[in-house]
């Protein structure tokens, strides 16, 4: 039977200055990868901190595997990579992990084995013997990830895990998280890299001004956003009018110049089957179709559309 890994009920944190979050109710099942999205200052980190016991909620409840958040039992089940963290630079990578292993009450031989395994897994390897003052931001991020995974937790909270990594590092972290998900771990991912969220997560929620705006499975969210990108030549405004006439007034999202008489047309279609009709219309209008495909970062589009025009207390989009 699949249990709930995280349950929050009307979780509220009021800092008294308009920040925080209010009435957040979420349910994340065991083994799910959950993407938590929202503009800067939306309150994502506040919620993660309440779940990891770093912040006391003003009201509402949160449970981790049935234990009230913040209790020792709840914290025993989780690993956490904070957004803004720094380990003491006078320690080596191995020493940081050894210290955290003691806090997690891992026995010495188990800790030694686990530390070596994790240092290799996150790509630090032998540099684990170096002091942290020689580590790049990316290396620190990898170490933070190793630290979060140290006690082999059931649930991992990751606040922007790939923020300081280069593309190779990002890919490696994503692969590592895919492996974790494959091992049945629950993943709670706060990230602005929506491509990563889209590839990894089963479920997403969108937070704005401390409140959940939308929530659902990634498949459902993407189904709502069936955007297609077409590269054509011979485009005239008449073509856009005909497409709108046939598929609806909102079908044409944008048209941009692609040079050498080419244009990019972005279409929002109700379903994938409509692309055949579009193809027919383009041929009928005398346009030549060179490329067609679904837009790459579709969650990004969903995120942008969901928060555009809304007031939010963080940075403006």
């Amino acid at each position: 039977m699949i249990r709930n890994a995280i349950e929050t009920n009307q979780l509220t944190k009021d800092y008294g200055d308009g920040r925080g979050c209010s009435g957040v109710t979420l349910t994340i099942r065991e083994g799910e990868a959950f993407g938590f999205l929202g503009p800067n200052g939306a309150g994502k980190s506040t919620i993660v901190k309440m779940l990891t016991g770093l912040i006391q909620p003003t009201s509402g409840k949160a449970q981790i595997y049935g234990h009230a958040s913040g209790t020792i039992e709840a914290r025993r089940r989780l690993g956490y990579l904070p957004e803004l963290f720094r380990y003491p630079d006078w320690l080596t990578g191995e020493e940081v992990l050894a210290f955290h292993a003691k806090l997690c009450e891992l026995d010495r031989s188990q800790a030694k084995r686990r530390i070596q395994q994790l240092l290799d897994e996150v790509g630090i390897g032998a540099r684990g013997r170096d002091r942290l003052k020689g580590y790049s931001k990316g290396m620190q991020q990898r170490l933070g990830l190793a630290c979060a995974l140290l006690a082999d937790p059931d649930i991992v909270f990751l606040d922007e895990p790939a923020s300081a990594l280069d593309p190779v590092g990002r890919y490696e972290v994503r692969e590592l998280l895919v492996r974790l998900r494959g091992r049945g771990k629950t993943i709670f991912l706060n990230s602005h890299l929506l491509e990563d969220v889209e590839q990894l997560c089963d479920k997403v929620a969108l937070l704005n001004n401390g409140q959940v705006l939308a929530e659902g499975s990634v498949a459902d969210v993407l189904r709502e956003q069936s955007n297609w990108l077409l590269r054509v030549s011979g485009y005239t405004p008449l073509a856009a009018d005909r497409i709108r006439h046939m598929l609806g007034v909102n079908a044409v999202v944008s048209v941009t110049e692609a040079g050498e008489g080419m244009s990019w047309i972005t279409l929002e279609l109700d379903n994938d089957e409509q692309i055949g009709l579009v193809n027919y219309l383009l041929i009928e209008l005398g346009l030549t179709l060179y490329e067609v495909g679904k837009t790459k970062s579709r969650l990004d589009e969903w995120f942008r559309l969901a928060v555009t025009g809304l007031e939010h207390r963080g940075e403006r989009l």
Partner: protein
Amino acid sequence: MIAVWGLTWKELIRKRVTLMTVTMTMLFWVAYWFLAGAIAGGEVHVVASFSLLEHFARSAMILTLGFFFAAFAVAFLAIFSSVAAVTGEAEAGVLQSVLARPIHRWQWYMGRWFGFVSYVALYGTLLFASLHLICWMHTGVLFSFEVLIQSLGLFLSIIPLLVSLTMIGSCYISPLGNGIWMTMLYGMGWLGNMIDRFMESGRLQISGLETLETLTGLIKLAMPADAVQQRMLSELFSIRELSGFYDLNRELSLFSINGAASNSFLLYCLFYTFILLAGGLLILRRKDF
């Protein structure tokens, strides 16, 4: 808690706190050696030309001067090693990953507290022993073991108080602000007791004495370090036992021992330390990071 305690020691060693402390202490030892030699008049052991009381007075002068430095050294080490204990670590982002671990917050706080206190206490003990050793080498005066232990206990007793006060400050104030606040408070405590000593010795004759007495009394309550230090010296030189028989304060002049903490005041210090420690634990328990 033991892991945090160990990490605190490692921090103090790796961040070169130990290196700087040892270097400065060695420089002090050199200066103190010559100072002790000058005060002792170049005589290494008791000789007939000096009376026993004169030897005792000279050793008291040497030790008083030594402890004048030692009190500041120990106090500043206690203050500056623990000045960034909470806010500093939270600002640096160190604390967030530690407190999300399955440990009670009091375990982390007490681990840090024991780490700072034990480190400074070890330094204080070594400094205490070295001052007595240098004094003995120059004057030949050796205090009884019982008196040494009693005065060492009093000398070290201020460390838990200073660490507790600094750590509770670090729950609210940034490291820089906390360092300034603690240094100024310590300085005020020292000055308050100094004024008290002047008034007791009759050297200070000013109007509005009651207000000043109230003020110095309040400062002493907030920062009792110097009063405890005076009590330590008083016990070491057996001031009470010598009263009416020998006026050591006359020999010590500016460094005369006045305003020593009473037994009740020592009990207050113990209670004050406990309240500060318990307050720090309570604040940390409820603090958001």
